[in-house]
């Protein structure tokens, strides 16, 4: 006869964060959190609160205490200009007009989006 196994001393309710993937291939998105005393119940409750409506293809369940948070502005939003790392840092309209003027050419009709994400229907007539 097995002896009654006592739960671990100091068993506490802790928040577990739940991430959901709506359908196959989607990114994981934070859905919310559940309060549970251990991983099994956390998983069980996550399924109920974030998956009972067949709204999730996959769930990640993580102890909040295990999540490392980075929100340091010095690291994530440092003061010097870094626009060369973003699309918005490359505005060429003026230069293109000047180049066309010099070459005596017309703006080509936009047919499809180039790999720099310009020239598609949305920016037809404005190859910025």
């Amino acid at each position: 006869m097995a002896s009654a196994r006592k739960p671990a001393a100091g068993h506490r309710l802790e928040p577990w964060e739940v991430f959901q993937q709506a359908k196959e291939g989607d990114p994981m998105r934070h859905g919310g959190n559940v309060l549970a005393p251990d991983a099994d119940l956390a998983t069980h409750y996550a399924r109920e609160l974030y998956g009972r409506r067949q709204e999730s293809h996959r769930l990640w369940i993580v102890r909040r205490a295990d999540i490392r948070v980075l929100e340091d502005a010095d690291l994530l939003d440092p003061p010097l200009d870094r626009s060369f790392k973003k699309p918005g840092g490359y505005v060429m309209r003026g230069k293109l007009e000047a180049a066309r003027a010099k070459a005596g050419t017309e703006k080509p009709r936009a047919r499809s989006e180039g790999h720099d994400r310009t020239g598609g229907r949305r920016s037809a007539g404005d190859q910025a």
Partner: protein
Amino acid sequence: MTDPLALDPVLPVRERSQRPWNDDLPHDERFRLFEEHVIAGGKVEATDWMPDEYRTGVLRFVEMHANSELMGVLPEREWIMRAPTLRRKLALTAKVQDEVGHAQLLYRVAEDLGKPREAMLEDLIAGKTKFHNVFHYPTRSWGDIGIIAWLVDAAAIVAQQALRDSSYAPYARTMQKICWEESVHIMHGRDVVVTLMTGTDAQRAMVQEALDRWWGPLMQMHGPRGDRARDRDLHWRIKAKTSEELRQEFLTIYVPRLRELGLVIPDPDLDYDASAKTWRYTEPDWNELRTVVTNHGPKSEERLEFRRINREETRWVRDSILGAASVAA
């Protein structure tokens, strides 16, 4: 090698995003910076510093909302047993389940502000905290179930949609999930009502009778017209719309939908004033509202007692889940 200082920044240097009130500054300074941030539409997370007034304001607001979801289960619960078809039983069980789920989500938000769930449940049962008026009334027929699921949930969703932009981000995010789930309830409720209204004379009479009883509480639900300038919840952008704005929105959407079914709204003075672009109506009984939300409604005591007994009877399960450490602490 290119001199980095010679690079021509194309975009102006942005203000660094800072949360200066999280720094160790004098209190008044922190308060002022926080207030500016919130009034400008900024968001607050659970881990940010907050003035006491903001923290207590959000906690009170969220706690009442959580309490309402939990107490809101009781009027409908009895009718789960009596639902007249398999599909209705499934829909009603799922709806009530959602209310419990919403209570869970909202208590979680409140817990992260520092108040333990057990303390909130104790305060609710002891009558120290409140829950919305509509959940203090009896349900007398299947007609009530249709009316409640449709109109009470609709009135709630009007308020909840406005809360999706609350300054307190965890609450705002929860509202988005709740609004999505509530929309199904409204459809279920409307389906019940429409089915009854296309049925027998007895069924139609059942719905009208239910509407006659529920219209008063519905009109009181969003609360009395207040002074916008003195509303602290509006000031801190915990909520974004006034009681009257919510009530007007509710009337605009739902009065036509009720009338199209042939239902008579039991307020002969209810009318849309096109020039003022506002609904006129008989002034709701604010005394009734006050009496009810202070737990003197027809079912207040009974339902709180029911919850108290239920908690006592199930305490042993919670204690065993936690083993050595009980949640009651």
